[in-house]
């Protein structure tokens, strides 16, 4: 076994830190877009209009039946064709993640909305609110609140999944680690370090979520 040289990490840290920031930016934007779109899809899926609900169900099932890597490749290929000019890897990755995760977020929100008692909706409508208003002011705030731990757990998974942008060469944390590892021929140090970083972030995040969940069940 060769001796390990950890100094390579401190030398490369500015580059790796930039990658980590890209990962977090991708997470934040895809999470915001995904939850927003997912909520919308969930509402459509539960709407009275059958055709609309069927379309939403198709969207969710289609995205959930193909691998994320395929979705990333799809948008990497399609977005420039649609727009007519090349877009950066970040844009195409962001679109891919937002749409892909919205399918998963929408399933969570659907469960959340279905968990709110019928009476809430009835009461809101009885006070003269439109369906839109009832969702906006009564149902969705409660569903969102109740589902916060699950949404956050899904977001931890999203953070891990964001490492897959490696396949289209977007310089997130994972790709940056790979670049330095190969350039310096220090694969062991770099990949072990990356595992450590991901573990610390995801483990502490899931601990916080668990705390939140426990507190909510008591309340």
């Amino acid at each position, binding site marked *: 076994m060769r001796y390990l040289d950890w100094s390579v990490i401190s030398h490369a840290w500015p580059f790796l830190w930039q990658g980590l920031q890209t990962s977090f930016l991708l997470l934040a934007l895809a999470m915001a877009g995904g939850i927003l779109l997912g909520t919308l899809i969930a509402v459509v899926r539960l709407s009275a209009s059958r055709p609309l609900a069927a379309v939403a169900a198709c969207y969710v099932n289609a995205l959930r039946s193909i691998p994320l890597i395929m979705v990333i*490749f799809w948008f990497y290929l399609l977005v420039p064709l649609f727009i007519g000019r090349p877009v950066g890897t970040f844009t195409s990755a962001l679109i891919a993640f937002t749409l892909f995760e919205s399918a998963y977020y929408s399933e969570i929100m659907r469960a959340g909305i279905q968990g709110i008692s019928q009476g809430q909706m009835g009461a809101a409508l009885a006070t003269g609110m439109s369906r839109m208003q009832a969702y906006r002011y009564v149902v969705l705030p409660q569903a969102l609140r109740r589902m916060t731990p699950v949404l956050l757990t899904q977001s931890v998974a999203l953070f891990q999944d964001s490492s897959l942008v490696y396949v289209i060469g977007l310089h997130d944390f994972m790709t940056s680690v790979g670049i330095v590892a190969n350039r310096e021929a220090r694969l062991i140090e770099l990949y072990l370090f990356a595992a450590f970083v991901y*573990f610390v972030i995801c483990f502490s995040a899931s601990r916080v979520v668990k705390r939140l969940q426990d507190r909510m069940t008591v309340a």
Partner: protein
Amino acid sequence: MQYRWNWNILFVEPYFGWLLAGVKWTLLVAGAAWIIALAIGCTIGVMRTLPSRMARAIGTAYVDLFRNVPLLLQLFLWYFVLPELLPASLGHWVKRDLAMPEYWFSVVGLGCFTAARIAEQVRAGIESVGHGQRMTAAASGLTTAQAYRYILLPLAARNVLPPFTSEALNIIKNSSLALTIGVLELTGQSRQIEANTFQGIEALTAATVLYAMLTLCVITGMRVVERQATIPGTLARG
């Protein structure tokens, strides 16, 4: 941008053969990894429900470790890092003499990763059988091993079938990550067709449709299993 369609490309050799090879390798990776995932996952899941504190701690550590590192990175650790950390002779064998190391490492990597998820399902399945059954078993004089063998596991097995279906689908989807260490499974093959012909949309469509068909097969197959395993007189209906 102009795009020239050519759907025929999918049905001429060698590309048609590449797609079939892709399906074959996807099934070989996912299938072999599934066996490992079931074996380790059930063991770890049971350990997490045992009275022994030690067993529970080991089980928890395994799940925490494998669930908090991205699968892509786990594959890299297996493929690039592990052979270097092995004793010299073993490392040499892995690097020089093992046929298709990328296949075996993606199977083991994907298997160990999925095992952590299976373990969580198994634990939940056993816990949902209820404390009452466990107590009753103990009260009627069964040892812990007997209680698991005759009461808890047979009941839990039915509980975990639906979540196992989604894990089986996940393992097929996740097997696409094997392309990052050089296994030409379905996604990899479609990329290769794209690189050779520039017919990216056709190639990706073919792979997407094939994934959807695999998914459908798994769902249908698991439905049959679920129906066979239903306990008569319960609310569950096939």
